[in-house]
């Protein structure tokens, strides 16, 4: 078998963006909050892009994976806090649990919903986050609607100093790492058989099937990968940054919408797209919330409609078409 060589050039711009964000946040006082938000949006976009961008399926219940990831971390910390000498290990267990729970949920949802196509898929997923939220609240699982608060446990395990360092600094670094990892996985998928299969499936699912591609397998693979990264983003960005979890907050559909906007803005199915989209969305949201608080959605809704009608390929998609010179084209993927 011929070994496939994945050339890492296209990762360069992504890494450069993350590196500059880090530098700006570290060196300019007062910027870390904005940088943390941008890192969150980029990572969420990267995670979502693996499924939405590569398959063209819309999952409206995407935030549920971030929600269960948050619960994974929260449960690990609340239940293992009384064991002595765990230390930082508890964070690792938390991430593992987040990964496990988002995988399980994505397998369960994917097994049902991925049998459906197009509009039917979107309809099936529109209730996933609400459904899961009402299950937790209704059956009073994991403390029901009262949620889990674990600031005290975090302080107890790590000590007050390092717990606050974790919340304000290391959690964001973890989000950065997750985003970068998602970019690597995206590039690997794009350059391997998986990517070609997904492209074929996005263009014409029936034709792909006829050509002998096991579309279900690749769809589920992309779905689970995307959900895992979402779970990790939830665990790092929500559970560790703000050590509490309430069902209505972590299953809020607006995060799904934000992720969709980011992916579309940057260019669905491109490697660089989610980062570009995340930066544009994050920066404009940040400044809109300063200058015109409460009007972000009113401004964004017509913008999404305009993007869909006028620039369906997004910023990176357009660049890809325009740039013909082979050397810069290597980096715009």
């Amino acid at each position, binding site marked *: 078998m011929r070994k496939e060589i994945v050339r890492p050039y296209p990762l360069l711009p992504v890494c450069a963006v993350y590196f500059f964000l880090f530098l700006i946040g570290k060196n300019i006082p007062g910027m870390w909050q904005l940088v943390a938000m941008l890192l969150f949006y980029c990572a969420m976009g990267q995670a979502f892009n693996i499924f*939405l961008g590569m398959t*063209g399926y*819309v999952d*409206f219940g995407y935030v549920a994976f971030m929600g269960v990831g948050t619960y994974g971390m929260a449960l690990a910390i609340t239940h293992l806090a009384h064991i002595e000498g765990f230390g930082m290990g508890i964070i690792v267990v938390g991430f593992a649990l987040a990964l496990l729970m988002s995988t399980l949920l994505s397998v369960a949802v994917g097994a*049902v*919903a991925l*049998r*459906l196509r*197009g*509009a*039917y898929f*979107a*309809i*099936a997923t*529109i*209730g*996933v986050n*609400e*459904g899961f939220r*009402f*299950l937790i*609240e*209704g*059956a*009073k699982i994991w403390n*029901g*609607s009262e949620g889990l608060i674990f600031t005290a446990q975090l302080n107890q395990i790590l000590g007050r100093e390092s717990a606050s360092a974790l919340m304000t600094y290391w959690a964001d670094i973890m989000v950065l790492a997750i985003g970068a990892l998602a970019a690597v996985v995206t590039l690997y998928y794009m350059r391997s058989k998986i990517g070609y299969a997904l492209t074929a499936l996005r263009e014409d699912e029936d034709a792909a099937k006829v050509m002998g591609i096991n579309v279900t397998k690749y769809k589920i693979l992309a779905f689970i990968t995307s959900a895992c990264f979402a779970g990790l983003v939830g665990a790092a960005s929500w559970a560790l940054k703000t050590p509490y979890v309430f069902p209505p907050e972590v299953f809020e*559909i607006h995060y799904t*919408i934000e992720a*969709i906007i980011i992916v*579309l803005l940057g260019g*669905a199915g491109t490697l660089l797209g989610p980062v570009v989209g995340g930066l544009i969305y994050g920066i404009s949201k940040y400044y809109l919330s300063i200058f015109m608080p409460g*009007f972000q*959605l*009113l401004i*964004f*809704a*017509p913008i*999404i*409609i305009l993007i*869909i*009608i006028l620039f*369906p390929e997004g910023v990176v998609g357009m660049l890809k078409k325009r740039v013909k010179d082979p050397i810069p084209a290597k980096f715009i993927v």
Partner: protein
Amino acid sequence: MLLEQLTGNLFQGLVLGAVYGMATMGLSLIFGVLKVVNVGHGAFIMVGAFVTLWLFGALGINPIFAVPVAFGVGIGLGFLFYYTTIQKLIKAPELATLLATFSIGILLEELVKLIFGSEFRGFNWVVGKIDMGVTVLPMSKLYACIGSVIIAILLYLWFNKTRAGSAVRSVVEDSEGARVCGVNVGRAYALSFALGIGITVASGVLLTMFIPVGINPYMGGVYTLKAFVIAVLGGLSSPYGAFFGGLAFGLIENGSYTLFALIPGVEPFALTRFLSFVMLLVILLIKPTGLLSKK
């Protein structure tokens, strides 16, 4: 005692179900004709509720007369969004229309929030109660139920007895064939979209009879989910299927609430909403064309 309570609640469910059914007919009509899923469906119901609130609360106009006003508002919104957005996306991949209708929903919510604010409001239309034997029903709810049935019948007549209705039906059967026979397909699309939105906004008026203090710019989300369950029950592309799906959903919702309330230590209201989501998945899995469809 329990049986009495159950039959009473089921009766209430049937009355509410008729309104649910009508609130879903617009969604099914639009999907049936244009193959567009209106993900912003609930926002149009919310617009209807605010039309009622404004007419009744500020001007003192009887909510019955709010129905035609809301219908007119809906027709206007429908044509507006069809010609500005949907028309340009009808040939685009599904992703485009899903996101566009979703954004339209958000736009409406934010506009209403801008005008009316985001606090919960409500009004009380007191027109007496009626004893139906199994349960006591406020007259306002009975009017809403009757109104829904009348609107469903009117839609049926429009489809089957008018020229425009036949044109729309021919487009559903075969849009190319209809075009060849001289049907203006673009106009049939526009008309169906506007009509679908019109019915949806009008249904918002009738739904306010059931939520005395629940009117809020973000109230629509719940109804979007419910409407999808109902539409899928009825086959997604058939407005009449949707009406009967609504009746079934009303029964299931109220029946399951009564039964969940018997289980100690749970929140029955949250569980009924979880159940509706499970129903959605199960129906889509076993019979995506709907339980009530012949295919």
